[in-house]
Every structure is written in C-alpha cells, then in structure tokens.
C-alpha cells in the first residue's frame, strides 16, 4: 500500500514561489490502478515525481508498505531499482539497445544472470505481443510497440509500484486502448500498484480510482474531460 500525508511542494520560479502541492493526503491499495487527473499546472506531475521517488525535495511523508520513503539519494535509487517501474509519455527507451535489451535492463541492474534476463525479457515481450520484435531497436518500432516495450520494461522485475506519466498521450486511440488493457492485465497478474498521471479519459476510465488535483489540492469535483 502507498500512502502520502500532508505533502507540500514549493517551486521557486525566479523571485516567485509557486505552491505546487499544498498539504495533500491519500492512499492507494496494493494492486490498484489510480489515476492522477487534473488540468495542466494542477500538480499531478509533481505528485507523481514525489511518489516515484524522482523528486525528494518536498514536505510531508510518503510510505510504501508501511516503510517511509528514504531521504538518501542512493537509498532512493536502490528502492526504485527493486520496487519501482516507470512508463513515460515518450517511452524513453535506450536507443542503442534492442527491445529485449531494454526490457532486460532492470533485471541486469538487479544482478540476474544473462540467461535469466533473456528468458524473462523474452517472455514478457511475448506477453505484450512483441515476440517477433525482440531484436528490433526502438527506432524500428512504432509508437505503440515502443510503449509496449516500455510497459514490459516497467513490469519485468515485478515491481510493487509502477509510475506512469501520460502513457497514452503519444498514442492513437486504438493503440492507447491496447496499452491500457495491457497495463491493467499485467498489473493485476503481478499485483502491482499503478499510479498514472493522465489527461486521457480512456485511461482514467480504466483506473480503479482517480485523484483529481486542482491548484495543488485534491478536488472533490468530478473531472471534466475535454471530449
């Protein structure tokens, strides 16, 4: 379970201080898929970065499975390596690595043998429908295929938490639906908690719950989608 209490974050923009998050609380149960929704500037990316341990400069307390997030950068890297997965809007695959190498990378960081890395990476790539593309480099894959590789990379080491930042924003409608279904199915299978920052109602509709953010606060109002 992920819980966060009294989270505040202030940015310094020139001489101005901007309050991105203003003492918000919340929690996500294990295996759930939670959407962080809200308009631009509402603070959802800020909260996502804090929950993903990418930003450690905040006030408040975040804990995972009852353990408070570390404050040391190396400990944070260790926690991300072992328990977190990431899916980015622009896929962020390593361009010189093939699909299987990209997917195997988290396993490499965890010290798996080469054979095990290959086996697990190939298996999950087959699960996401890319069994025939394992030796393709990212620039030889479509956007949807790249995002599926990214999903495989995020889940291959069976993390407790996957942070997804606008995972469907760069995809067409059909591919977006495919990617959402994949995330949900694989997440359920592994028991991973997903926190998804999104503007996409299709994504939000598939989530178990949605945290609406507005001006750094959690809003009780229902999100109004653009379409």
């Amino acid at each position, binding site marked *: 379970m992920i819980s966060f209490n009294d989270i505040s974050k202030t940015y310094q923009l020139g001489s101005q201080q901007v309050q991105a998050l203003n003492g918000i609380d919340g929690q996500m149960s294990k295996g759930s898929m939670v959407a962080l929704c809200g308009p631009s500037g509402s603070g959802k990316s800020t909260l996502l970065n804090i929950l993903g341990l*990418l930003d450690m400069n905040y006030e408040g307390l975040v804990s995972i499975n009852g353990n408070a997030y570390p404050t040391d950068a*190396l400990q944070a*890297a260790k926690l991300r390596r072992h328990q*977190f997965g*990431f899916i980015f809007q622009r896929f*962020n695959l*390593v361009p010189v690595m093939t699909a299987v190498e990209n997917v*195997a990378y988290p396993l490499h*960081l965890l010290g798996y043998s080469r054979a095990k890395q290959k086996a697990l990476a190939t298996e999950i790539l087959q699960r996401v429908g890319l069994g025939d593309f394992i030796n393709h480099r990212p620039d030889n894959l479509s956007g949807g295929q790249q995002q599926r590789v990214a999903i495989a*990379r995020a889940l291959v080491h069976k993390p407790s938490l996957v942070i997804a930042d606008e995972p469907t924003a760069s995809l067409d409608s059909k591919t977006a639906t495919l990617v959402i279904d994949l995330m949900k199915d694989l997440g359920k299978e592994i028991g991973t908690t997903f926190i998804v920052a999104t503007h996409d109602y299709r994504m939000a509709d598939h989530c178990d719950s949605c945290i609406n953010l507005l001006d750094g606060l959690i809003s009780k109002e229902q999100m109004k989608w653009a379409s």
Partner: protein
Amino acid sequence: MGKLTQIFPDTMRIAWLNLLRNSRRSLLSMLIISIAVFALTSAGGFGLYTYDSLQESTARETGHLTLSQPGYFEKEEDTPLGNGLVDSAKLVPQILKLDQVRGVQPRVYFTGLISNGSKSTIFMGTGVNEKEFDMKGPFLDVKQGRTLSNINASRYDASEPEIMLGTELANNLSVKIGDWVTLLATTSEGALNAYDFKVQGIYSTGVPELDKRQIYVHINSAQDLLVSKKVSTLSVFLFDTLDTAEVQTQLTKTLANMSLNEQVEITPWQDRAFFYYKVKNLYDIIFGVMGAVMALVVFVALFNTMTMSVTERTREIGTLSALGNYPNEIIALFLREAGLLAVIGALIGGIASAIATVTLMLVDIQMPPPPGRTDGYPLNIYLSFELLSYATLGVLFICISAAYLSARKGVNKPITEALIYV
C-alpha cells in the same frame, strides 16, 4: 556465452553503439587521439633512436669503460704521459677474461706540431693499435686511403710509420695518401722529439673542429715519439652497452685483487658523454613540452565530445537514473565510451607509428647535420612498445578524466529536470 552477449547489453558493445550514434564526432575524436599517439610515439621513437645512436657513438669513441689513473680526466699532465698507466700489460689479460668484454684498447693521448715541410700546425694525436678501428665501426668515416696497418703483418714496414689525418687537417697541410708529415712533440722527460710519418688514411669524424686537429698513429710510434712505455688510458669495449654497470663492478673487484704499482680508476662512458647528455636534456624538454601540448589537445577534444554526448543524452541519463542506476554506474557508461575511443585511437596511432618506422627503414631520408657537425644522419624512429604503452595509458587517463568531468555534470542534474530535457 557468445549467443548471450548478442542478447544482453554487453557493456562494451553498448559503449561502442553509443559511439556510433554520432559516428562523425567519434571518428574525429578518435583521429585526434590517433594523431596525438602517433606524434608522441614517433617523436619519442626518434628521440630514442637519437639517444641510442649518441650512446653508441660515445661508447665507441671513449670505450664503454675507461681505465686510467685517478683524476686523469680532471687534471692536466705536467709532462706527456705524466699521469699514464704503467701496468697496462698486466691489466689487459685480466680484463679480457670477462665474457662481456669485446676488446681492450690502450691509447696514448698527446699533442704537438705537425708539419708538411713548409707549413706547420698544432695537432691532437691519439696513439692506438689497429684494432681500434674495428671497435669504432661505422663511427669513423675513412674518406681516402685505409686505416692503420697491423704492425705484426708482413707487409708492414716499420721504417715507414703510418699516420691518419682528419680531412680538414689534410686539406690545410695539402697532403694526400703516401705523402710524409713530421710530428714534433715534447717527450715525457720534457725534451723535444720529431718523427716522420707516411699518410695512410684521411678520415672524417663529422665534427669540423676535430677534423682540423685530429690524427691517429700506432701506439708504439706514439710511445717512441714521447719516449715512454706508459699508456694514457685503457678503453674497454663491450658486446652490449647494457652490461656497462655490471662489468664495471666486476672489474672493480678484479682490480682490487691485483697487486698493481698504481691506483686505477674506472670511468663509465656516461661520465664522459657530455654531448649525449646535452642532446638528451634538450630533447627531453622538447618532447616533454610537445607531450603536454598533445595532452591538452586530447583533453579539450574529448571534453568537448563527451560534454556534447552527455548533453544530448540528458533524457536518457534521467531515464537510467529513474530505473535505479546509481550515479557512478551512469558515469561508468561514459567512461567506457571514452576508454574505447582512447584504446582504438591509440591502436591506430600505434599502427601509424609502426608503418612510419618501417617506411623510414626502407626509404633513406637524411637529416641535416646538427650544429657543429658536417655530416647528416639517417632519419629513423624506434617503435618502442614501452613508449606506446605510456602514450596509450596517458591518453586513456586523459580521456577518462574528461569523460568523468562531463558525465558527473550530467548525473548531478535532478532526475525530474533530466527527464523533460529536450
């Protein structure tokens, strides 16, 4: 394992692929490293060749070791051979017992006047035996005639003592092979003595000042002229210059066990190699400055390359950090790339240097004569693996340092900023 390396990101393969991302830039960096290594190994190889040649010429001139009375080279003699060795006949057989010794040459140094009958000038003479010229090898260039004859040979005529003259001296006196000259010198007892000599050979040392004054005569002729049986020095020639220190130690022990009528000092060739050390010091400074400039060029080039690479891959660094890479692991990625550039560049530079070495062995390119010399010398460079190793380690260190400084800046960027970097 081979199949597995195809599958999993073998760290060096990934480094290589990253270098290929901007192949033109990587090629340029590699080229700069190659040129630097080529320049360092070639210039250094030329230096080593020069040192070696000078070392050999010095050792051939003075002998690898010189036996003399203590302080012979520091103090002036009151009379010719006043500080000469008496026991040379006892010493020579003992020295020749050592396996490393190729030969022992007694020498008599003397000065005086040389005359062709109508014109006289001063000379610096050396009394030697005929084997001296075998020891000198290519370092004495006989321009006309021959070297001194073997006095034990049947064709040697004792009534016609032989002399060899430097080219300039022969020109000054207008003498040619077969002409007669007279040497006038002070004897060891202070009287004047004169002998006539027949010109056997005319040679060049390559040093105009020596060619104007220098002569060689048989050692017994010199002793007759000076009315003494002493010799000035005994020059010990070795098969291998590297044995100098070892033989000096052995000879010191041998001399200590001999009952001699005089004290004997052993001087290694290095103590008499003033020109060698002057050239070496000069070249060391030149090559040192050149090496420092090359190091700076490589550093600036690599720092620029790696900084551009790090900047272009900021988002990738952010991604790798997010996935849980530690900063030093990300820095290591860039260090491997820089290391690969350095090693490949050094390899190309080394190969270019080897090609240059072989080419110069096949093509005779002459260097102009150095200051104070008349003859040029062949342009050769030694391919030294030691030098190549140092150059490779040097560029490796420089490249890795440059990559470290660049990469450190990249990994210190907050992950959230790195991930949105465009």
